[in-house]
């Protein structure tokens, strides 16, 4: 019994250390951040070395999987614990030469570099989770209490994948679509990636290192495309396009309304970039155009034209005056129009497009697919038939919106 207890403690300790290593590697860990130092939070390992530690051509960055670092190469001896610590903290290579100045010197203690080193030793296995000899296990989000919609989404995704791949296999492996509870990221730890998560549920998955494809809803625009790829415009892109639309409609004072001062400020900047001479105002009565960015109450000015996103319109409880002009920005015009044409629910079209993107990523990632390669493979992908271009828009593939008058 005591042996079992000790084994459990050892396992828990290992798991905890591994998680800390992941958090350090990806800049999530609250490690030492002395003033003026380049910390792991600002310059995490993965941004240069890749989430798989394979290095990158930008900056000629070397691979840092421990299986590579720990053995001698043509131009250096193998690293050990002491030399690894010195390299990370002092920028001195195993052979005593200075490392590239592009490599930050991190203020980590020995226990922290040991944790990081242990994580590098597990990267190979972590990156191949969900990749089995005969199948690839990919999660598809389920919505609690909406089994029919969830099943329909998964079925449409499977059909789209099959059409794009000519069957349910890629490089000889079957694709297994696994239902994933969007509120339980921990249950997805052994999957290759997750598809169709609501945007609000994405962060806990990506923080665990799970790639997320085609979330449902608008991303903010600040997310990391090495772990997350969408198929609809981000909120930033939506606001920029809406600002350009509003700015070109005349020389009238504009009022921007949002509960978030940062959002309001960012939109005002976008407006001034699109039309430097266009007047902006803080007073509802002066405004002839009012832009509402969230569920804020509509300012009292029935003569003003209102510009609002579809999501904000749906979230608001207050209503406009009966004869007030409302212009609605739709962030998924392609999906909506395709749904109208096909007389189906837009979520079904979303699933079809998610399937198309996943199929392209799987084909491009190759036989030795990993979590990092899956998303990296989308880097140059252009899907003309569904209007996605990841070379131009790495995070979302598109910035297309439509602004239409509300009937």
């Amino acid at each position, binding site marked *: 019994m005591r042996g079992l207890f000790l084994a459990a403690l050892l396992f828990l300790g290992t798991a905890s250390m591994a998680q800390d290593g992941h958090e350090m590697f990806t800049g999530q860990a609250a490690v030492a951040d002395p003033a*003026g130092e380049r910390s792991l939070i*600002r310059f995490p390992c993965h*941004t240069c070395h890749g989430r798989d530690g394979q290095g990158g051509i*930008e900056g000629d*960055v070397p691979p840092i999987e421990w299986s590579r670092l720990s053995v001698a190469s043509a131009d250096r001896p193998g690293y050990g614990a002491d030399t690894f610590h010195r390299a990370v903290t002092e920028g001195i290579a195993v052979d005593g030469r200075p490392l590239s*100045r*592009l490599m930050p010197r991190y203020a980590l203690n020995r226990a922290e570099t040991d944790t990081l080193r242990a994580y590098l030793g597990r990267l190979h296995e972590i990156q191949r989770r969900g990749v089995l000899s005969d199948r690839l296990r990919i999660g598809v989000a389920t919505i609690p209490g909406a089994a029919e919609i969830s099943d329909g989404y998964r079925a449409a995704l499977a059909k789209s994948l099959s059409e794009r791949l000519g069957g349910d296999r890629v490089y000889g492996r079957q694709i297994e679509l696994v239902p994933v509870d969007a509120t339980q990221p921990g249950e997805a730890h052994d999957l290759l990636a997750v598809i169709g998560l609501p945007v609000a549920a994405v962060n806990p998955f990506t923080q665990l290192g799970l790639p997320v494809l085609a979330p449902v809803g608008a991303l903010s625009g600040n997310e990391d495309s090495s772990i997350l790829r969408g198929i609809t415009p981000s909120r930033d892109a939506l606001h920029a396009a809406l600002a350009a639309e509003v700015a070109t409609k005349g020389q009238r004072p504009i009022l921007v309304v949002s509960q978030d001062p940062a959002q309001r400020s960012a939109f005002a900047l976008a407006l001034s970039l699109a039309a430097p001479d266009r007047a902006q105002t803080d007073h509802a009565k002066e405004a002839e155009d009012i832009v509402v960015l969230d569920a804020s109450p509509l300012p009292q000015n029935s003569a003003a034209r209102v510009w609002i996103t579809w999501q904000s319109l749906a979230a608001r409880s207050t209503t406009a005056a009966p004869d007030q002009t409302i212009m609605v920005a739709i962030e998924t015009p392609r999906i909506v129009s395709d749904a109208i044409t096909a007389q189906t629910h837009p979520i079904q079209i979303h699933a079809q497009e998610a399937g198309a993107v996943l199929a392209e990523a799987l084909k491009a990632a190759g036989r030795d697919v990993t979590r990092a390669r899956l998303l990296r493979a989308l880097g140059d992908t252009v899907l003309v038939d569904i209007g996605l271009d990841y070379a131009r828009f790495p995070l979302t593939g598109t910035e297309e919106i439509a602004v239409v008058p509300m009937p």
Partner: protein
Amino acid sequence: MIRTALLTLFMAAAPALADGPATADFARERLAMPQVTLIDQYAREQAFHGPLTDGQMLVINFNYTTCESICPIGNDVMAELDDMLPIDAPVRLLSITIDPGRDTPAHMRKAADTFGASERWSWLTGTPGEVSRLLAAFDADFANIVLHDPVFIVGDLQSERFYRSQSIPEAQELADLVASLIR
């Protein structure tokens, strides 16, 4: 008066460099820059030969806003330098995009805000043709932007004397070089 005092302090902190930098990390070059029109992070047109650069010592790096690997490190060096320089020093920091097709003024403004750029630090984009002419003159016209070097260039348009970093410099090294050149 305050400006003079600040400059005096700034230059006094720099090592004595009678004929350029003391370290071998910068290569000296003569570069003639074309007149091109760029757009800064506030969507203002900026003639490269004009108020932006007249009488200014320039510290220039080249980046693109979707670069998440080495560019942020170079920008961090610029941010440190921005903080080090006296507020009235005749020094202009320029971050010039190597991806004008995607780097709109709005993207440049967002990146400038991320690195806390002061008024002296301009983030410049423009039409691909204008930007390309400038990058070619700086020998920073990379065929593949992903393969760009983290190069820094320090100098002024009037003398056409410039110093090119051979590796990514420390902010203090840039500050020392700038101080030696404006002495």
